[in-house]
């Protein structure tokens, strides 16, 4: 009997020991994992941390060391779950929010990184690592001044960050043209550790810090193919008495489009910039060659900074166009613009433009009356004045733009005298894998001043009963862009236009779908 009792007792002890053993073994595994991790031996630490978590799923420190090791090994996505679990189990663990911010930042999840940094700053506003990543996140959100200040804070909080924080701060201050602060930051980075990659980069960039005030030259070339549903801008209508109009109809066509431009800055300092650019745009229709466009243009500009956030641009321009090989129009004018930066997120522009057109084609009267020729002379001057703004809804990711402009056209022929209102709204969205989506919608309202001689009922027009032309034009564009490199981009575009006019010949709709390749080049002189 005593032997049985002894066996039972032993069995009870053995069974009772097992769960306790697991509980006691887990801290040993985790302590060892922590020691290995602290020695930067995360490959060895990880299996121990994972075993510890299997034995003690509620051990926050085991989850923490697993998460930190995964982070250390660059497995950012995998690190998020254990780090999050560690924080759930023990909210007092230090630095976990910054760990998570690091993960999200390196996964390009900038908003998530920002949210974790918010939390980290509430826990410890004076943590250098938190401030360094705050700077990186702000930089990605296009908040360069705030980013530079965060980098400066990081370097001040921990001298071991002086190199990296100084280099980043210097570059960021340079990007907002604050050369004095940039210089100080680069000097800090260089003096902290001259032989490190940070110090060497800072020294190199100190030497080229004045590049922002050096002149730039650039060139852009773009080509593509479009399908245009209505190159003639006509609708299907019939005319009773004009044989030519009877043959007028909507035509679709495939069009090769190409353009190029080049420019050079002739002078630049902190207060002003001036330069010149020339360009060319053309197209070639597969069928309707009469509409093949050749359009060279030229412009010069003068920019003057009025304050840190405000500057003006004066920009005269000139252009000449041929259709097929026949002169079509010569025009010239100028634009005056006032730009203002209201905040890191919001910039605005007020502009006014004057343009004089001289159309080079001849109108032959049909019906053969001089008043048609006179009234249809489109030569004239247009003015347009408007405002537009751009707002970074999600900095670095989503931006909105909108504007409105009032215009007036003084034509030599009364048919073309008109007022105009143009309103537009657009958005640009960064997509995964570096794609960029751009959408733009525009509405034109153009009430003309006089009855239109293009009225199909000429008798009605000549008797003074015809309609006064009013156009409502709706236009929508969607473009998807993908940068192949920093200098090459491919894009696809779809555009739909619906023109509603009470004068039938101006009433039509049209869509265009195309694909393009754009090459860009820039150089600092």
């Amino acid at each position: 009997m005593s032997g049985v009792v002894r066996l039972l007792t032993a069995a009870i002890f053995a069974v009772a020991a097992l769960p306790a053993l697991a509980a006691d073994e887990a801290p040993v595994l985790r302590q060892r994992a922590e020691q290995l991790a602290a020695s930067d031996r995360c490959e060895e630490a990880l299996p121990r941390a994972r075993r510890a978590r299997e034995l003690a799923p509620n051990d926050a420190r085991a989850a923490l060391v697993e998460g930190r090791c995964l982070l250390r090994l660059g497995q950012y996505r995998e690190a998020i779950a254990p780090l999050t679990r560690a924080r759930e189990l023990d909210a007092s663990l230090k630095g976990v929010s910054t760990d998570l911010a690091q993960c999200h930042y390196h996964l390009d999840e900038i908003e998530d990184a920002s949210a974790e940094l918010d939390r980290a700053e509430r826990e410890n506003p004076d943590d250098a690592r938190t401030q360094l990543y705050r700077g990186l996140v702000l930089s990605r959100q296009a908040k360069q001044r705030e980013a530079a200040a965060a980098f400066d804070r990081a370097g001040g909080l921990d001298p071991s960050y002086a190199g990296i924080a100084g280099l980043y701060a210097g570059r960021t201050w340079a990007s907002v043209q604050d050369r004095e602060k940039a210089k100080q930051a680069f000097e800090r980075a260089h003096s902290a550790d001259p032989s490190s990659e940070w110090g060497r980069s800072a020294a190199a960039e100190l030497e080229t810090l004045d590049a922002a005030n050096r002149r730039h030259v650039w060139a852009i070339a773009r080509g593509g193919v479009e399908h245009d549903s209505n190159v003639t801008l006509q609708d299907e209508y019939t005319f009773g008495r004009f044989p030519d109009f009877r043959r007028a109809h909507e035509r679709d066509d495939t069009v090769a489009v190409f353009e190029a431009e080049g420019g050079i800055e002739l002078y630049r300092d902190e207060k002003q910039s001036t330069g010149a650019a020339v360009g060319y745009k053309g197209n070639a229709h597969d069928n309707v060659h009469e509409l093949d466009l050749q359009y060279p243009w030229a412009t010069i500009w003068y920019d003057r900074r009025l304050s840190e956030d405000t500057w003006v641009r004066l920009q005269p321009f000139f252009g000449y166009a041929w259709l097929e090989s026949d002169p079509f129009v010569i025009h010239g004018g100028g634009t005056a613009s006032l730009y203002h930066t209201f905040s890191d997120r919001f910039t605005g522009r007020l502009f006014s433009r004057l343009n004089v057109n001289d159309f080079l084609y001849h109108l032959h009267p049909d019906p053969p009356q001089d008043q048609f020729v006179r009234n249809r002379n489109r030569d004239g001057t247009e003015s347009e004045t408007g405002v537009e703004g751009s707002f970074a809804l999600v900095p670095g990711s989503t931006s909105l733009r909108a504007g409105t402009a009032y215009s007036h056209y003084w034509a030599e022929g009364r048919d073309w005298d008109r007022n105009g209102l143009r309103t537009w709204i657009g958005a640009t969205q960064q997509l995964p894998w570096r794609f960029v989506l751009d959408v733009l919608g525009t509405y034109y309202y153009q009430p003309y001043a006089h009855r239109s001689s293009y009225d199909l009922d000429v008798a009605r027009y000549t008797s003074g009963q015809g309609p006064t032309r009013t156009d409502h034009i709706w236009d929508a564009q969607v473009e998807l862009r993908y940068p192949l490199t920093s200098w090459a981009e491919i894009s696809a575009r779809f555009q739909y236009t619906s023109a509603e006019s009470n004068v039938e010949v101006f009433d039509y709709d049209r869509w265009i779908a195309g694909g393009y390749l754009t090459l860009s080049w820039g150089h600092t002189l």
Partner: protein
Amino acid sequence: MLRPNIPFLCALAGSLVLSSASAAPAAEELGRVTGVTGEATAQQPGAEPRALHCGDPVFPGDTLRTGSDSHVGVQLDDVGTYLDPNSQVLLGRTAANTPSARLLAGKVRMIDPRDEGEPAQLAVLDADGHVKGNDAEAYIFKEKVGPYAMLCEWDEPLPVSRGNEQKTAKPGECVIAKPKEPLYTANAHDQRIPTIAEECAPGPDLANLNNPLNHLTPRDVAAAGPVPGSDSAGFGPITAAAGPDYMCDNAGVCSPVVPLVVVEPPPDPACGPGIICNP
């Protein structure tokens, strides 16, 4: 009287030889303090005792001591070692370079979560426990005839040797090593030596594991420089102020303002409303 003491003295001498080989504390770290309550010390032969604090390193040759109301835990490689109050343990390494803990007084617990590798050593008097995957304890008890050792096990079978003798403690058993008596087993008690309730917080090295320098390069913030295209010229991007888009508004090539009529062959020499006739 001499028989049980000879192996013990040999083992003690062996441990001292092992420890003296690395008497300089800085030479080779054996482990770190993972928990301490009350006053505990570590002492190299011939040196002053060092008060132990969280995260302190311990070295081969160190003798750890706890007071009447203190505990200390050290992590020796993969093995957790925990001293009860009023205990002394001499630390070292075995010939296979695994941790060794020789109990000199009191009680000690050794938890080894490994499944592979050479065993660690848990020694007491002249008895050696070969620890691998074990949760073992060692005790020194005193009787009138002299001290004796007890090694208990809670997880895996624990082989215990003394000279030529060998006995294995099954989980829930202890091997008793009394002088003048062969090794024998007995049922274990139900109270184990506690691990440290208050563990040391992770050290700063773990917090610094993800130093940004390990993740970032100078390229993570772009250097200022010319950008392809016109963005670097002027104070804002240069665009053709009356570029092709504007031309379209006026020329009618790509806007609705002038409807062009295309007359396909044969061209009609007559021009009419809305028909462009070239000069």
